[in-house]
């Protein structure tokens, strides 16, 4: 009884190719597969983008984004938009694997399973970056604010990494449940609160040109979060896809 639920312990030694080249080519293969599929269908990115623009539009009416309000709430609006669009993308990217049976195929391939995790996570991260790169200028134009601030870009990179690191792991669990579409945000948001605190605070601080001494605690929080959760997700992912 114990043996059948522990196939990993057995398969690990031969599948776990610690040879760096094989690992990276596996990661690259998974990323390319996702990008190529997206290039053909464009369904994830277009959904994320349209959704983001709609969220910003709704915020415009909900918050009366006049010049005075904007300076304080811009970071909040941006991060809520990214978070919502992010769950959409994460759910879609994992659900696709599940529905088309790609995940099973991937699992059969003689690659380290963490290579699959990193491949999926980096693919999701690329999608998120693309959405963010389009949302930022659109927001800048719509509200006549300059968002091209290197500090803000750094915060967006750090925040997205942490968000996607946890999100990829939780999304691969969520798609294997009965309630998959509604479950991901419920699982993901309480865990990613530190990211939103750090990212919103740091973004606002950069946009309002606060001294760096006030920004560092938030950046450190984001960096610590990214490191811890990337490492934990890497160690734990095996158990999520194990069948």
């Amino acid at each position, binding site marked *: 009884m114990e043996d059948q639920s522990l196939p990993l312990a057995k398969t690990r030694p031969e599948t776990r190719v610690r040879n760096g080249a094989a690992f990276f080519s596996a990661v690259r293969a998974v990323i390319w597969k996702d990008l190529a599929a997206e290039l053909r269908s464009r369904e994830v990115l277009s959904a994320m983008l349209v959704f983001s623009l709609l969220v910003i539009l709704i915020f415009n009416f909900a918050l009366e984004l006049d010049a005075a309000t904007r300076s304080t709430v811009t970071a909040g609006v941006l991060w809520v938009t990214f978070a919502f669009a992010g769950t959409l993308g994460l759910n879609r990217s994992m659900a696709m694997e599940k529905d088309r049976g790609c995940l099973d195929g991937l699992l059969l391939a003689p690659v380290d399973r963490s290579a699959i995790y990193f491949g999926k996570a980096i693919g999701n991260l690329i999608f998120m970056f693309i959405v963010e790169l389009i949302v930022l200028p659109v927001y800048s134009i719509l509200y006549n604010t300059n968002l091209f601030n290197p500090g803000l870009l750094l915060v967006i990179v750090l925040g997205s990494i942490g968000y996607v690191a946890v999100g990829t792991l939780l999304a691969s669990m969520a798609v294997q449940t009965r309630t998959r579409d509604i479950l991901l945000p419920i699982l993901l948001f309480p865990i990613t*609160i530190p990211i939103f605190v750090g990212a919103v605070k740091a973004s606002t601080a950069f946009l309002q040109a606060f001294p760096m001494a006030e920004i560092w605690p938030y950046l450190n929080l984001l960096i610590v979060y990214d490191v811890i959760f990337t490492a934990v997700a890497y160690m734990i992912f095996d158990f999520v896809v194990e069948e």
Partner: protein
Amino acid sequence: METKPRLLTIIDTIAVILMIIATGMVFFYAPTEAVMGNAQKVFYFHVATAWVGMLSFIVAAIAGIAYLRSSDRKWDRLGLASVEIGIAFIFIATVTGSIWAKPIWNTWWTWDPRLTTVTIMELIYLAYMMLRSGIEDPDRRARFGAVYAIIGAISVPLTFFSARLYRTIHPVVIGSGDPSAQGTFDMTPRMLQTFMFSLVTFSVIFVSLLWHRVRLGKLAEKVEQLKLKVMA
């Protein structure tokens, strides 16, 4: 149903006796605080229930790690039991915190780090339950529960730290705190004794409840298996 172990009966008895003494200490032994009045008495059990909530989180995470390492279902029962008790006690801690906040800070709710963290813990627990209820296969349910318990436990200190980057008004009762924090009070020896006694009491109650809940889980599994057997 296996008979109730002797040790469990002993723990139950101790828990009940301790609870009676602790309640007595809170109402008759501990002095009334000069500034806050009797509302301060909520504090003893408020902190104790929050403590049980923390404890249950740690137990659930450890059980999660143990389950992933061993695939032994008993760890899953322990994890689930711990989370369920945590939900009840963190709920108490949140509500009593709110009740205490009203007379002291004149508001039902503040975004104080501890209050915020505890509330997010409750949300993580509820998410854990929803995750489990969406999975039929018991092995997968146990595995995903373990993974989520671990992830949740790791995020809690970070959540606390992030919430703390905001200014706090929570009274720092033990150790030197921000003197401007309203509601801070110095504990007299009697208060400290009552406080410590409450912590011990609730720890024993936690152990007793945990054991009962694990036994319940075992029974439920037995019924489930028998059902499958009879249906077949």
